[in-house]
Each structure stands twice: as C-alpha cells, then as structure tokens.
C-alpha cells in the first residue's frame, strides 16, 4: 500500500520529529510513503480568521498537490478537519473543484485512525509497558474527525496505562490565531489543562495534534510542570523501537 504524507506545516517547521516518526511508523506497518514536496499548509489559519478567498487559494494548491493518491495520511486531526469539512464548503460554487475536494476529503486520514481503521491494526508491535499516558483529545480530531477510540486503542495495545485526565476533551486554548488574538484567555485555558495534567500524575502527555501539544507544553514549562510531552506518532514509534531493542 502506498500513501502520501501530509506533514502539516507545523510539523515541517517546528516538529519534524513528528513527521519522521509518522513515516517510520507507516513503513514499519508495510506502507510505502510518498512525500509530495510541493505541499505547504492546509490554509486553516486563514479560514478560521475569516479570510476565505485566501484559504481557497491555499486549498486549491493543496488539492492539486495531493491529487491522485489513494490515501493521504497526516499526523493531525486539525488540518484533517480543515480538508474534510471546510474544503468542500469553500468550493461550493465551483463544481469541478468541489468534487475534487469531496474526493480528497474521503481519502484523507488522521494517522491513528488510518492505522486502526484502514490498516485494521491496533497491535503494532510497540512496547509502552509501564507508561502512564494522558491522552488529550484534540477538538478538531474529536469533534470534526470523530477520532476518539483509535489513539486510545493503539496506546493500550502497546501496554500503556491510559490516564483519563479531568477535562481531557476540553480545548487546550490553542485555536490557531486565537492563541495570539485572545492571548490572555488562550493562556488561561492552557493553564487550567496544565494543572489537570499535573494532577493526573501521568508520565507523558500525548495527542494527535502538535498544535495542542505546543500550547500545553508552552504553558506547562512556564509553570514548572515537568510532565513529558510527546506527539502520538513519536510516542508510538519510540514504543516500536523499544520493542525492537527488547526482541
């Protein structure tokens, strides 16, 4: 099987390890990965801020870059939600683009969902035994992509102890430009979550989305909360490496 990786601009620029781990995980699961190098950003920041012409331009570029791949996999629920729920809407009045947007939406998968639902794997040969993991539900993954069970199943199958932290499905406060436009509120939201995470005594905080984790880590670091933060792709890949080293 062959998929196109949409690394997302956040992972590309700030957290390349997330995308690297995604590639390694997929290859570990016998999936061939292609990286269309002309990819940039999904356009969500512009869309959510109300700049729909600008985001339409970016979306058109994205459609073109990812045309022709059977699957597009990305380590993010948020950018996935943009493609899945807003692209078709952006091209509501352009029938040809609309149908390619619908088509791309159907081919686009958040990483954990792809592994569990498309590949049909929950047990991926990762060893996270003894690890207390707090999973943060990214809002867009949860509410717009329906990602709830897949990450949890992968973590549990790897032997991690899943800690359901109070408010695990409450927004971290990132919200793209919201985090700087309404910085004080955004930071307060992160702070509330950070305290809950600290109280849960988890070893590691993980999520499908690097944006949420950047926000939470930024807040936790400022408050001296030392819980380790790792994107689900990295965490799982480290589990695979650990299993490999042991075996």
């Amino acid at each position, binding site marked *: 099987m062959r998929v196109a990786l949409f*690394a997302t601009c956040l*992972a*590309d*620029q*700030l*957290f*390349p390890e997330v*995308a*690297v781990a995604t*590639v390694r995980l997929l*290859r*570990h699961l016998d999936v061939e990965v292609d*990286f269309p190098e*002309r*990819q*940039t*950003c999904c*356009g969500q*920041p*512009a*869309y*959510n*801020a*109300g*700049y*729909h012409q*600008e*985001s339409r*331009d*970016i979306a*058109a*570029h994205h459609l073109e870059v990812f045309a022709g791949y059977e699957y597009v996999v990305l380590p993010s629920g948020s950018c996935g939600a943009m493609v899945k729920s807003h692209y078709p809407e952006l091209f509501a009045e352009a029938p040809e683009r609309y149908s390619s947007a619908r088509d791309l939406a159907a081919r686009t998968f958040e990483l954990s969902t792809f592994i569990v639902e498309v590949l049909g794997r929950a047990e991926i040969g990762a060893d996270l035994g003894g690890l207390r993991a707090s999973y943060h539900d990214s*809002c*867009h993954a949860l*509410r*717009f992509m329906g990602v709830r069970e897949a990450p949890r199943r992968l973590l549990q199958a790897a032997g991690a102890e899943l800690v359901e932290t109070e408010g695990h499905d*409450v927004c971290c*406060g*990132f*919200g*793209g430009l*919201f*985090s*700087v*436009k*309404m*910085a*004080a*509120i955004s*930071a*307060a*939201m*992160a*702070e*509330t979550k950070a305290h809950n995470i600290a109280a849960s005594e988890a070893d590691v905080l993980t999520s499908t989305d690097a944006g949420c984790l950047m926000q939470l*880590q*930024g*807040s936790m*670091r*400022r408050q001296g909360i030392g819980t380790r933060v790792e994107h689900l792709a990295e965490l799982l890949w480290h589990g695979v490496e650990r299993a490999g080293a042991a075996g």
Partner: protein
Amino acid sequence: MKITTKTFAANAREALNDTQLKTAMKRATAAFVGKRNQAVAEREDFEELRSYCGAVKAHTLDYLDHYLEQLVTSVERLGGQVHFAADGVEANQIVRELALTNDVETVVKAKSMLSEEIELNEALEAAGVTPIETDLGEYILQLDHDVPSHIIGPAIHKTKEQITALFHEHLGTPEDADIPTLTAAARQTLREGFLQADMGITGVNFAVAETGTLVLVENEGNIRLTTSLPRIHLAIMGLEKVIPRLEDLPAFLTVLSRSATGQRASSYVSLLTGARRPGEEEGPEAFHLLIIDNGRSAVLADPKLRDALRCIRCGACLNSCPVYQQVGGHAYGWVYSGPIGAVLDPGLLGLEETKQLPQASSLCGACGEVCPVKIPLPELLIEHRRRAVERGLSGRPERAGVGAFAFVATRPRLWELSTAMGRGGGRALSRDGYLQGGWLPLLKSWLEERDFPAPAATSFRQRWRELATDRDDR
C-alpha cells in the same frame, strides 16, 4: 444594560484577574456540564430529539409570518390582548402605558433576558412603577445593582459569601446565614411582593401558535405566582419564540430541561391558555402579550444567521465553552454571552459594535455539540469573522499578513525559502530550545504567559530527502 461588547478583550483580562469570579465560574460550569451530560446520556433518543427540535424551530422561522398570525389570532380568541413593538423603546412605552392606565404601582417580574435587553426595569422605575425581580438569582442581582452573567443561573458569578453579606445588609439575615436561611428570607420578603403586586410580567419559553398557549419553564415557582396572583399578566416575548403545536412541546421540554440543568423535568412547566375564564375564581383578570422585534427581523432576513433564532436559552453552550468557563458572562458586554451571545449579539447590535465577540472562541466545537436545537454555532462564529474581513473590520496589518501568507503558501519554492529564513531568525533568538523574547507582535502576546519552541534546525522536507532513500528504519 450598558453595552460593553467593544471592549471584550479588556473585560476578559479583568475577569481573568478576578480570583473570586474564577472560583465561582469553575464551580458553576463544571456542575452544569456534569449534570447535563448525565441527563443526556440517559436518553437514547436524545440525538433524534435534538434533530427534531432543530427542524421544528427552523421550519417555524421559515414560515414565521404564518405562525405569528396564527398565534395572535389564537391569543385574541382567548380574550388576550396582543401588542407589537419594533424595538425596546416602543416596548417600554407600551408597558409603561399599560401600567399607568391600570393604576399599577408594583410589578412582580419573572426572569426574562428580553427585559434585560430592553432595560424594562429602568423604564418602569422612571414611570414611578416599582419592579420586583422574583427569581432568586435576579433578586440577588437587583439588590446588588448587578446584571446577569448566565441565562439559567443569572447570579452564578457570585459566591455564597457575597450573597450572605448582601442579604445581611438588605434583609437583616445573620452574618453567617446558610443557604436555606437565605432562601427562606427571600421567600418571605418576595411573598409580600406577590400579594400586593398589581401586575405580573414574565417572559415566554414557547408560544404555541395553534392554541395560543404560553409555556413557561422554571424551578422556583415564582413564575406560577407571578402569573396567578396579580390581576394583570403581561408576557413579553421575542418574535422567534413560536412553535406550531402543543404536540411539539414534550420534545422541547425534554431537551430544554436536560440541557439547561440536567433535570429530567423542570419543577414547574406552566401552559397558560388565556386569562381567567367565566366560572374560574383565580388567575389574572386580564392577559396581555407583547411581541418584540428589536433587531430580530434583521437576523431573520439573513439566511445564514437565521439559525441563531432557534435558540431556546438553555445555556448549555455557555457551560460547555472553555472561553466562557474562564471569563464568565459579563466580559461579553451584553445580555447574551458565551457562544450564542457571540453569534446573536452581532446580529442584534451590528458587527461593528461586537466584532471582538466572534473572535472569543478557539472554535473547539463544544458548543455545537451540545446545542439542543442544533444551531451550527462554530460555523456561525466563522461566518461573522468572514463578514468582518469582508467589511474591512479586521485591520490592515492582519489583512496584509494573511495575504502574504497565502501568497507564499501557494508557491512551494518561495515557501521553502521564506520558512527557512523564518526558522533561522527564530533559532537566532532561541536558547535551550525555546524562543527568548519575541520581536514579532504576535509572538509577544504568546510569550507573556507561555513558552514557544525554537524552530527546527532542519525542516521535515529536508529530512525527507535522507528518509526517502533510508531503508534502515524498517
């Protein structure tokens, strides 16, 4: 109430620094959310009921001229008098005249957000009529000259200690009175008001077009008293409160009580169909219904925003909103707060006056998930943002910034070049893997309370060129 929607961000900062408010809000919203979720989980058909109620409301709004006609005819057939007001000024004038021609000195009032919206109490006082708020929360606010911060729990921003002190001062209850003592004192004082009042003013939860029945939902019993004891009952309603048939009610009441307070049924639901009839000894002698527009017909005329008028005022979107949970209702600067306020207020007050409100959301989607009539709140928040951009309300620097971003993001080579430069700049400003001191205006506000990671030395796309041929990972 004084409108301070323009200064939302500043109001919010102030609210965030109020530790008492934070405690009160956290407690209240957590309790509301917990009860709501439990009550909703009990009903397997809740999703179906949401869809149905949303569809009935949408239908009624689409044919509102028809249903309003039907409602008015039904109420008049029952001997009720119906009045119409284009705006708050006209509404207040009608109420004032009603009060004066009927020699009304004292009015008992049940909670009505619409009356806050049109500042009815101030108008009554100016006419020499004494309004008494009888909902416990509203009564507390009236004593303290404060305004509601929540649709269902108007005084949830206040702590028990604050209320105990307030009652001690005004009602002479002990300085350390417990909640039952406070409640009993309010009962006694307000009961006197009910017995002497000439007119009772209530809002309306649902007005049934087919039968002319007004439906009022509550837990305290003050609405029952307001509509039973005074000789005149005046109900005020926004023009969007109509539903077609009595048969629609069970579904609406189910979603309302479960969404609002997590109850299977509210303590009291009054279905009032006209005033006292021949042969009846109790109930008001005269019944008036005042239907108010005050900006609603403009929202109705807007095919996208029309959905906001489905709102049945349950407050679930407020409770579920992580922004509301942090800042409370007052920060929003008007009667309607939280996500529904951020969607409705721009419709009623104009986007120029309220443009910050739709920005007060991380677009997490929690509000849309709980709305019992399926108002697409996140979509409408984005729609307001889109319109703000379209009307040039978003500011030149932002517009230029987003424009430049889109230009670069559609040109891969330029993207690679400029992101590389950006990363280089960011790394020069970083130490120990984190940015130190942002010179960009955007990062400055981020860094006030959070750290920001240093950009990667090597982007993923550079790493890919090694990974592409790397087969050792397997």
